[in-house]
């Protein structure tokens, strides 16, 4: 089944303005579209950097797949808003959010990265699925792996609340545990996740903020040093970090959704295999990838490159997570070992205090699993290129094109 943006039916065009006008003229205080981002809190009475806020919209959009690039694929996902909007919660803000949010979905969703001890106020505005006016789906954010979670902020619609179209819900997280997590929508999870509501999320450790010269069991911390975890010994020090999220799409499922057909759950079979929402060679494109949406507007659709670069001698941190909804994946390197320091956002360390790090050339992980791995590039030749790729070799494919898929390059400067 082939489809193009030009094949939109007239009925869709007629229904579109209903959504777009939903909140356009509202006054901010009275609007259901608003952001909660306090200047001070109980935990941070003086305000400051410990209070972090983000505003995501959830809706639909189109992405460009790595095969011939001619065939946009329909997705649901989140998007961040541009920096140049009206003052938050001003009278113009809700209308601007809808204008900017419609058909702006990204694959993967915008990366969320905060620090330990941050209070994180994450506002989610549901802008509706413009291409599916038949759907009245709410959305949520599930911070996958958040320790000691409260049900109200866990984003499971069955257990709590989800946000309707044209309205905003602010999630609150008190980030107490560094590590690599992930996030996704949990509403009708099989559908919304296959459709692409998936993103990277991680928390940096408070060890990054130690005073210059602090001695960590013989490792001397210097201001600006970054670590994956509060290791206490500098063993998770890194120079450059890359979130790498594994995933895959079933084009027939996405097309069925776009064409308002019954969704094929039983026959779901993914054929596009991706890192951060792109298949090779898109993965090594350093620039954002844009796609023309069905309204004719060019939108950034896949902002995240997976090209991994480092100067020889640097340590690379890969934050590898998997949000595949159909299968496990094995991700491998050729020629350079990965040192696994953490699994599921927890340092690998036994109760006696021994590091249980290990070296490997491959990791196998299912949906909802994550590993932090370090790659030490000491001794690697400048100008050399290595690969991070799935050793499920049939997944080195972009649908019917058999060279591509779940692979990227590690280039040593």
């Amino acid at each position, binding site marked *: 089944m082939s489809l193009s943006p030009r094949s939109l039916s007239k009925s869709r065009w007629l229904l579109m303005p209903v959504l777009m006008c939903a909140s356009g003229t509202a006054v901010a205080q009275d609007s259901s579209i608003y952001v909660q981002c306090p200047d001070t809190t109980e935990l941070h009475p003086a305000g400051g950097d410990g209070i972090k806020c983000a505003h995501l919209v959830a809706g639909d959009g189109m992405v460009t797949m790595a095969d011939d690039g001619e065939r946009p694929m329909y997705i649901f996902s989140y998007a961040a808003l541009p920096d140049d909007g009206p003052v938050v919660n001003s009278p113009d803000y809700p209308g601007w959010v809808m204008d900017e949010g419609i058909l702006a979905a990204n694959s993967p969703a915008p990366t969320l990265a905060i620090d330990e001890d941050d*209070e994180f106020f994450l506002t989610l505005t549901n802008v509706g699925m413009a291409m599916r006016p038949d759907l009245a789906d709410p959305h949520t954010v599930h911070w996958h792996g958040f320790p*000691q979670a*409260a049900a109200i902020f866990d984003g499971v619609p069955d257990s709590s609340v989800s946000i309707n179209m044209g309205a905003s819900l602010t999630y609150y997280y008190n980030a107490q545990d560094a590590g690599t997590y992930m996030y996704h929508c949990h509403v009708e*999870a*099989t559908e919304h996740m296959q459709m692409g509501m998936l993103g990277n999320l991680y928390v940096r450790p408070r060890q990054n903020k130690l005073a210059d010269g602090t001695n960590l069991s013989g490792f001397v911390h210097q201001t600006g040093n970054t670590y994956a975890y509060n290791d206490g010994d500098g063993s998770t020090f890194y120079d450059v970090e890359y979130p790498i999220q594994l995933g895959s799409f079933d084009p027939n499922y996405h097309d069925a959704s776009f064409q308002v057909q019954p969704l094929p*759950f039983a026959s779901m079979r993914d054929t596009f295999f991706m890192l951060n929402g792109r298949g090779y060679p898109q993965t090594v494109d350093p620039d954002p990838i844009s796609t023309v949406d069905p309204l004719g507007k060019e939108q950034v659709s896949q902002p995240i490159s997976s090209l991994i670069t480092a100067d020889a001698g640097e340590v690379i941190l890969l934050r590898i997570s998997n949000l595949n909804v159909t299968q496990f994946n094995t991700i491998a390197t050729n020629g350079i070992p990965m040192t696994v320091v953490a699994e599921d956002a927890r340092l690998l360390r036994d*109760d*006696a205090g021994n590091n249980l790090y290990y070296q490997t050339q491959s990791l196998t992980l299912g949906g909802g699993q994550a590993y932090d791995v370090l790659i030490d590039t000491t001794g690697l030749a400048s100008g050399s290129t290595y690969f991070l790729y799935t050793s499920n070799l049939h997944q080195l494919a972009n649908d019917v094109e058999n060279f591509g898929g779940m692979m990227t390059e590690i280039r040593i400067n």
Partner: protein
Amino acid sequence: MTMTRIQCLAAVFGPVALALAATAPTPSDAAIDGVRGTSFNLTAKPAYISAPDGASIYSWGYTDGSTMQLPGPTLIVTEGSTVTITLDNELPAAAGNTSIVFPGHAVTAAGGEQGGLTREASPGGTVTYTFVADTPGTYTYHSGTDVGLQTEMGLYGALIVEPSSPAPGCTQSAYGHGGTCFDREYLFILSEIDLDIHQAVERQVAGPGPIELGEGPFASEYWLMNGRCAPDTMAAAGDLTLVHQPYNILPMMHPGDKVLARVVGAGRELHPFHFHGNHVKVLARDGDLIVSETDATALAGPDLYTIPSLPGGTVDAIFEWTGEGLGWDMYGHDADDPLEPHEDPADHGKPIPVDLPELSQMAFGGFYSGSPYLGALGSLPPGEGGLNPNAGFTYMWHSHTERELVNNDIYPGGMLTMMVIVPHWVDLP
């Protein structure tokens, strides 16, 4: 399927509402359902099991009485005991021989006839297996004959070996180590059903055999916890509409409880088993307690938010939850109210830091109490909520291969249940 989305939701969640309305006041007991002893008589026989989409699926299973069940009876034995299992083969003659293997145990088989892996019971015949349950832990048992087919058809179960005495300092433990003490325990047997195989077998069992399946491709359409697809997972144990699937799975706890999850991979697929709410600490894999190489008194299993469950493998893990460090008081206390057991004093009296939207702007889950606070009920529009009368916090525990959260072509369903954390003033059995 041609159902609309609304029809699907009504069809699937309607029964949940009914089931939980009936079971919520009397949840399943903290002890794992099963049979205890040293001597068990199991019979392999056919029956039709039920899926929530209305499917009635021809299957094979074991029984320790007269009613076939899937999975087979959970055998609970004590460390050091000599265990004897007698197997009667009442499968259709076309199925041929059958047998049981007990991975992780040194088994002596008697009677029957010699097969590829162990001695087998021919149609109508009997075979006996004996082993010493010498190491505590969670194990599987399953057919050792025509294994791919017979386990697919349902001939599997769990074997739990309890330590000869609890670890020092507690009344229940998974192993002899004090770090394995628990307050409540639940079993999660994960498996799948490929409808095409079951239907092919059903068509051939009246014939002379052997059963021929062809070349596939084989693909599952149903994903099960303890033999049931959601939402049946959460219906009462022994529910009379699920005659051949007596085991439910609806874990419940109080804040501060240590909950032992025994996870069994009984099918042929890997499942990433995701625990909402908190990490679990892995104690053991395949009955092997994981301890530090430098200090045998220190545990060494990882803390995970997703357990990769492997075919034939088992994992024992401890789940705990107190809501510590939330940054707000989950009970909604005033600052001068007394602390609840296991409450984080640092959060006491702190209000929830955000306002929730107006009711008209939200959609509500059946397990939402109407309030963000533990143990508090709040206003909901008519017809919303209702599955959580004790206003617990509920957490989905499920396969994170989300395509397994369906019953054939219908979402939701499959390999999922809810962990219900109720406030300490609500009694749990």
